[in-house]
């Protein structure tokens, strides 16, 4: 089976310290990778490397067989990234944020699609409120609603469960399972060991060094 996302012998050096080296991974359609590790073990760096935001010190990341550094645009169109920063504009409403983000990606930016996405994240009726007036968890959910408006096959989620209440955690897990069912791949980090979707593989960073 063809690998959708693949890393070959990745090394990451930040601030003179090697966070990980010789790391290889391979994700096929419908697979989920759960990256765990202590603070500072390089979880975020790994995710940013997989997105192409951070150039690896050694090694390369392949998307459907193509080096992501060479196929930036094609990969970007198939990638949805939710990082530590929400990437939402505080002065705009949740709906405006979603629709403008979809328009910038060339995705479906119709009102109906964005309303539906907010509904999926339990934000129905909050779409016309400027994001600055939402709570921390609601802001996070606006960022996650972008996942519903995109057609991306690769989801990279950095601490997506942070600041979410119990109901939203369930909702997000449902979204992830749908994405895997569609044949997408999901890479995520989380602090709490959560109930992972069936078949999720686990990658523990920083364990080998024993630091």
């Amino acid at each position, binding site marked *: 089976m063809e690998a959708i996302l693949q890393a070959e012998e990745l090394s990451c050096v930040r601030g003179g310290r090697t966070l990980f080296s010789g790391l290889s991974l391979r994700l096929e359609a419908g697979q989920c990778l759960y990256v765990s590790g202590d603070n500072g073990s390089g979880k975020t760096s790994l995710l940013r490397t997989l*997105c*192409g*935001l*951070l*150039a690896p010190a050694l090694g390369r990341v392949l998307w459907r067989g193509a080096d992501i550094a060479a196929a*930036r*645009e*094609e*990969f*970007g*169109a*198939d*990638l949805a*990234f939710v*990082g*530590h*920063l*929400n*990437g*939402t*504009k*505080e*002065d*705009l409403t949740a709906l*405006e944020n979603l629709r*403008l*983000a979809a*328009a*910038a*990606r*060339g995705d479906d*930016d119709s009102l109906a699609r964005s309303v539906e996405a907010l509904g999926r994240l339990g934000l129905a009726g909050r779409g016309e409120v400027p994001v600055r007036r939402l709570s921390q968890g609601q802001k996070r959910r606006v960022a996650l609603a972008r996942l519903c408006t995109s057609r991306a096959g690769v989801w990279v989620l950095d601490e997506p469960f942070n600041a979410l209440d119990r109901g939203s955690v369930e909702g997000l897990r449902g979204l992830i399972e749908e994405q895997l069912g569609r044949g997408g791949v999901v890479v995520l980090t989380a602090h709490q060991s959560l109930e992972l979707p069936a078949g999720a593989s686990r990658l523990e960073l920083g364990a080998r060094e024993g630091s």
Partner: protein
Amino acid sequence: MIGALLAVARRDLLLAARQRGDVLNILFFFLVVVAMFPLGVGPEKDTLRLIGPGIVWVAALLSSMLSLGRLFALDHADGSLEQLLLSGQPAVLVVLGKFLAHWLLTGFPLTLAAAPISILFDLGLEPALTLVGALALGTPAISMLGAVGAALTLGLRGGGVLVTLLVLPLTVPVLIFGTMAVEATSGGLGAQAPLLLLAGISLTSLALAPWAIVAALRISLE
């Protein structure tokens, strides 16, 4: 592809509409700085006519520098910038979209404001119109060069002053040809050559600067 450029520009214009003060402050800064000179220099008409174009240009340059801080910094701080660069659209188009919005919010209003403010220097109709034309052709280059500086200093502390120090020397040709165009019109010579040179500088920076900006933005996100 052009859709992505317009979507980014539309986003920035909508954001500016929510924060009108930021845009108006730059325009008022320009008007106040220009208006100070006739008061400081005195009402000698010949002197004012001589220094007017240069003062309007320098004030336009300084006002543009003030606006650079918000070009990428806000998007960098809230994570929108990484989303835009991962959007699957050519990053150069994203940068051009941001440039378009920036010029419409700074260069364009300054160009329009230069017409009434030139009355303070008794420039006369034809030199005033040349000044407006020169600003229209030259301010895109200022926005583009400024964007390179803003991208290079992204995430640095005290980046605001540094960006001014980096970019202002690069805008010297724009300043020289911009004032030369007005002088040529007042002196009865045609302003065609300096205006064409201004257009050339703007087009060259439009063609080359986006690549440098994209490279600088990618480094700042690492």
